């Protein structure tokens, strides 16, 4: 992945790669250090980028780069790139969406602690609305998978991006998926006038308009709604399932953080309910 990004998107240098987990027990990577910050110095106490705010001046510096690098990731020619650990969902038009629903519903079954009927409903709703995308389409792109504020670093003086981080969810899929992720309500914040900004950077309309203008792709509202629910579903699963169960099992050095963050999953359940209410049953 980092090889495919070389010269296109700033990433750390790879020092060690265990693509199949034969050395580390799970797929893993060791990279070089990169200087930079994820939040303006005044917000340096925040974790995970949630709640980060940018002044208008910072937004003017960061938004063009945020969009530029998203466009470049999505513009990667994955068909001719050396990506041996990536498989393209090209067997049938709904495979890109189906793989994601299958994967994350499996994670929920493995990791759930407290059952939530709304999560079960969301899975059923997504399975009944799987959007189609054709194998030859330019809309099937290399996705970052966790592209948002908190996952890019920049120089605190110049504002120039120094690295895009957290690539572990990267895969090949529908471009709407990254947009749905960026639009998650938890990652958003208010501008000075109270307007909601996606990733605390730009309005929803600005994101979609500028992305379409830069890529020539057309955003389908129904497909975007599907991927917004998928994004919220993933976050609910990560927080109420995987993170919470890891904290219970004492699996890492951040147990207290994971248990503190677990209830953020309820924000995502609220988001799922809101979108499904808006979109209707089918």
């Amino acid at each position, binding site marked *: 992945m980092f090889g495919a990004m070389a010269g296109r998107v700033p990433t750390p240098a790879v020092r060690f790669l265990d693509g199949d987990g034969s050395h580390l027990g799970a797929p893993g990577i060791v990279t070089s250090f990169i200087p930079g910050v994820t939040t303006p110095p005044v917000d340096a106490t925040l974790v995970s980028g949630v709640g980060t705010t940018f002044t208008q001046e910072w937004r003017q510096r960061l938004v063009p780069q945020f969009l530029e690098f998203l466009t470049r990731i999505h513009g990667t020619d994955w068909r001719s790139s050396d990506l041996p650990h990536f498989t393209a969902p090209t067997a049938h038009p709904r495979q890109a969406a189906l793989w994601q629903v299958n994967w994350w519903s499996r994670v929920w079954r493995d990791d759930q602690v407290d059952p939530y*009927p709304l999560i079960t409903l969301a899975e*059923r709703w997504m399975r009944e609305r799987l959007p189609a995308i054709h194998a030859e389409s330019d809309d099937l792109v290399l996705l970052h998978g966790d592209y948002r504020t908190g996952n890019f670093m920049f120089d605190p003086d110049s504002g120039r991006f120094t690295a895009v981080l957290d690539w572990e969810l990267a895969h090949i899929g529908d471009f709407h998926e990254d947009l749905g992720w960026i639009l998650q309500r938890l990652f958003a914040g208010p501008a000075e006038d109270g307007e909601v900004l996606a990733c605390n950077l730009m309005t929803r309309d600005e994101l979609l308009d500028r992305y379409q203008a830069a890529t020539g792709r057309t955003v389908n509202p129904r497909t975007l709604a599907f991927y917004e629910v998928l994004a919220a579903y993933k976050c609910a699963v990560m927080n109420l399932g995987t993170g919470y169960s890891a904290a219970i099992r004492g699996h890492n050095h951040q147990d207290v953080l994971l248990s503190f963050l677990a209830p953020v999953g309820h924000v995502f359940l609220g988001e799922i309910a809101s979108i499904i209410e808006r979109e209707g049953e089918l």
Partner: protein
Amino acid sequence: MTPDVDVRLGTVVTALRQVVLPALPKDEPLAREQASLCIGQLVLLAEQVRYTTEYELLCLAEMRHLGSLLADAADGGPAICRAAASVRAAITAADDPVRTPRERRNAVAREIDALLHTGTEDGTAEFRHRSHALVLAHGVRQSTRDRGWFRACGWDPDADSLPSVPEMIAEATS
């Protein structure tokens, strides 16, 4: 009875905040972050502790009500009839005071999940439509309630629109 749980939690928070955290070296960011998270958890617990039983009983009552409505709406083949019977049995078993309200709530919710999954294959279109509406309405109420329960965490983007913990409990018990 003495000392009160609130007092005990409050004194621990004070000690962590005023003595332990300032004593941690500035170049130990993980330790400082972990200590801050401990304080945050304890402050949240202090707000919730007096209402925890009422809150979990409220969630249990809501789950039982949802299960009852779904079991009544169950319509389809033999598998969905069995799943509905399991929901009813879990609702009845939820009277058992030995298990915690959370355990009883989860037992009912697991059977509801099984009913919903079964309904996908063995339920009528009418059941799928009805269950969609019921679960969604419950999900709206429950997610709002859970967000209010954890409002003091400070990350909810719409925190001002959420009820406080005392407001929720007062409304549920009035």
